[in-house]
């Protein structure tokens, strides 16, 4: 696969080096992939994205877009990379159809093509009825959808979304992920900045975990999952506190009480079928319901983001379990 972006030893400091936004970050973004940038608020994700789209100059290191240094070719990057930066502040006075059409024209599209795509996107985003409303008159969710529309419009080779699904209800979130995946199937490379790990897991090919301005890990979701406790999680809801089946559950694996009516059982993968049979039989003895799941991206994230001492403790515990 071709490298679209190459981030090489990028560091950004402010206030004469007193504040470090990111530190010695290196990785590549491949053509046609969906890369998720995960990290808590203030981790340095947005700074890195601003460096990638040539809005912020790295203090050290460089970023190449298709082999060209973005700091010398920021116009080229803006032509081929569409960036959605959380809040479409500059567009709030525009009507939704104007925001989409104007953005398409500013990206270099001809009038007819811009109009056609505007209509297509209004329909796909479910905003036909709001087309003539100013963005500032829309609900938070609709405003966000319109902002995402301005990123999707045109035919950029790379699309970057910063927290695209914040403030959206589940139906609209699904819609946004579908549209992003659709653009990816058409050949666009996608970079997603998010702290919504559960959603990202459904969409991304690879994940880069960033915290305190440092790249902690980057790999495919499945490879990263291999780095954490491989036991399955059975989340069990009890019909009554301390039901008769509780004692038997403890013999299956590590039982972690969560609340009075909920507990989590960690079991080895090969015992899943057996456990299912037991839980079905045990339902009458006070187990209300259960759900079994493999390690998630969220587990990976918490594992990677732990401080080293805590992670070592956890690994010892896992080894002894």
């Amino acid at each position: 696969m071709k490298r679209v972006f190459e981030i090489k030893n990028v560091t950004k400091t402010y206030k004469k080096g007193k504040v470090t936004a990111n530190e010695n970050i290196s990785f590549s973004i491949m053509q046609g992939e969906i890369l998720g940038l995960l990290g808590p608020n203030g981790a340095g994700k947005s700074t890195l994205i601003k460096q990638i789209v040539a809005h912020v100059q790295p203090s050290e290191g460089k970023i190449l877009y298709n082999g060209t240094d973005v700091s010398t070719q920021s116009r080229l990057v803006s032509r081929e990379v569409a960036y959605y930066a959380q809040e479409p502040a500059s567009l709030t006075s525009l009507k939704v159809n104007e925001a989409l059409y104007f953005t398409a024209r500013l990206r270099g599209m001809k009038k007819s093509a811009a109009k056609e795509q505007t209509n297509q996107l209004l329909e796909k985003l479910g905003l036909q009825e709001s087309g003539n409303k100013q963005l500032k008159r829309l609900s938070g969710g609709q405003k966000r959808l319109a902002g995402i529309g301005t990123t999707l419009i045109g035919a950029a080779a790379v699309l970057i979304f910063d927290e695209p699904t914040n403030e959206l209800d589940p139906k609209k979130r699904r819609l946004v992920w579908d549209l992003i995946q659709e653009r990816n199937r058409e050949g666009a490379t996608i970079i997603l900045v998010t702290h919504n790990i559960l959603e990202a897991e459904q969409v991304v090919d690879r994940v880069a975990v960033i915290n305190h301005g440092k790249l902690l890990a980057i790999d495919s979701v499945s490879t990263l999952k291999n780095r954490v406790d491989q036991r399955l999680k059975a989340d069990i809801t009890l019909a009554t506190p301390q039901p008769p089946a509780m004692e038997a559950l403890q013999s299956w694996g590590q039982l972690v009480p969560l609340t009075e009516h909920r507990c989590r059982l960690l079991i080895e993968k090969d015992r899943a079928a057996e456990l299912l049979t037991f839980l079905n039989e045990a339902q009458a003895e006070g187990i209300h319901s259960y759900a079994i799941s493999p390690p998630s991206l969220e587990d990976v994230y918490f594992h990677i983001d732990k401080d080293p001492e805590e992670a070592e403790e956890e690994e010892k515990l896992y080894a002894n379990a």
Partner: protein
Amino acid sequence: MQMHNSAGYEHSRFKQLVAEAWILFRIQLSNIREQWALIFILASLFPFTTLMFLKFFTVNPTDEIMIRIITGNMLFALIIMGLNAMAQDIAWQKHQGHFTYYASLPIAKVNFVIANLIRGALMSFPSFFILMFIGQWIYDIKFHYSFALLPVMLLSIMSVVGFGVLLGFWSPNMQLTNMLVQALMMIVGFMTPVMVEMSQLPAVLQAFSYLLPTTYAAEALRELLTVGWTSSVATNTLILFVFTVVSYLLILKKIHWRMES
């Protein structure tokens, strides 16, 4: 939808530049579509009140003084847009995060400035003409009208716009920008020969005045409206053109919305 370089794209750079300027101007207009009347009134208020104040304040003014007062206030209407409003608008757009959107698009920075400038000119030209007519009426003066008024007006705005844009892009916060542009307005308006005779100013202010485009704009406007197109108006217009080029170069070379360091 297809990837980049598809048929739906404009291939002529010139056509794209024109379309870009037009769209950016429409975006600027949309920002004021609900408040244009208020902005227009407020932009006229300062020169209008100054004009009225000087009418009440001066007893039996000479024609020379009256012309200076009227043309000085007309010029004020233009400077308010080119320097004051431009700096405040751009600073506001900067602090509201508008630049992130614009910097993400393949647009020329100078087109963004031109769009802001045309919007500003549209808002200031009515004030300019209203002050001209009111001034003539209350001071009982007759002006000489000429088509040359249009380039002089445009160059007067454009010669100061670079400083307005520079202040707006530099703005560390809105409050400081507001205070700075108000102070600049006062200095340019009252401590340079916009409304007073150059010889009435102390030597240091006279020297300082030669560095400001408003000195030449006031001179050109005054002579154009009282005598018509003369060699002195032509010289001052040429100087304004040089200031405009310097403004343009300042914008081009010193202002960056991509690659903030």
